[in-house]
């Protein structure tokens, strides 16, 4: 009995944390005015926000029903895929010149995103 009460409190706490971080992430997405800084907000929602919601689901499943480990998988896949999507959005931002241009790398010629044929660069600049 007391275990169920404790679990309920833990679930509520995790849901609250997840909801707060999701809210802050959305506020950040709206508030920032540059596309690169805006990218920082969703990476936050993707980690602690979703992580806390999944933890709540995990505790609920183990206390009140059939235990399920799918949440662990969701979290693992999310942690693997979130950086990739953020990386792609960052690359698009660099290409579209919608942010301050990055400094050139110290040891190599250029960043691999900008390492494209001259003709392709002119397409972007003519837009």
């Amino acid at each position, binding site marked *: 009995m007391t275990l169920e009460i404790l679990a309920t409190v833990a679930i509520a706490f995790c849901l609250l944390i997840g909801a707060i971080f999701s809210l802050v992430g959305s506020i950040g997405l709206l508030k920032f005015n540059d596309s690169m800084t805006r990218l920082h907000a969703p990476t*936050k929602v993707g*980690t602690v926000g979703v992580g806390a919601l999944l933890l709540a689901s995990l505790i609920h499943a183990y206390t009140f029903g059939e235990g399920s480990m799918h949440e662990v998988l969701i979290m693992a896949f999310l942690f693997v895929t*979130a950086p990739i999507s953020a990386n792609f959005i960052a690359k698009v931002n660099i290409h579209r010149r919608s942010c301050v241009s990055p400094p050139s790398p110290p040891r190599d010629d250029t960043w691999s995103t900008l390492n494209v044929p001259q003709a392709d660069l002119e397409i972007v600049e003519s837009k």
Partner: protein
Amino acid sequence: MVKAFRWLLPHPFLTILLTAVWVLLQNNVSTGMVVFGLILGVIIPRITAVWWPDRPRGFRFGRMIPYVLLVIWDILVANVQVAWIVLTRPNDKLRPAWVVIPLELRQPEAISILAGTITLTPGTVSADLSDEGHSLLVHALDADDPDAVRDQIKERYERRLIGIFA
């Protein structure tokens, strides 16, 4: 014998990972499921072995566990910091900056883990790699001193990854 083992299990870690993912997907730890997972874990690395000719040789699994725990802790701390910045800092007082990190890591797997770590710890997003792979471009949300961010990433994550992939 060793050769046959190498042929059958070109990537033992991938075999374990695939088996674990299969069992978790089925949500059912029974002998049948584990055996089927092992069959998948042997077949998939075997038939895809052609596409990764130079996988990392030394991978110290024992050092990976403290690294993962450290990253999870950093994610929690950095989340609170960035949430505070989002809620309290006006836009014009924000100092976003590009940070260039010269890399000592050479293995592609190690660099992707480093880039993933940098993106997951909020406040920094890894954006690009230089064309020869010698430096990593990172965008920091609020950095007074980009050099300090660079040194922290090198000291905290890259040094440990060098130890893991040595």
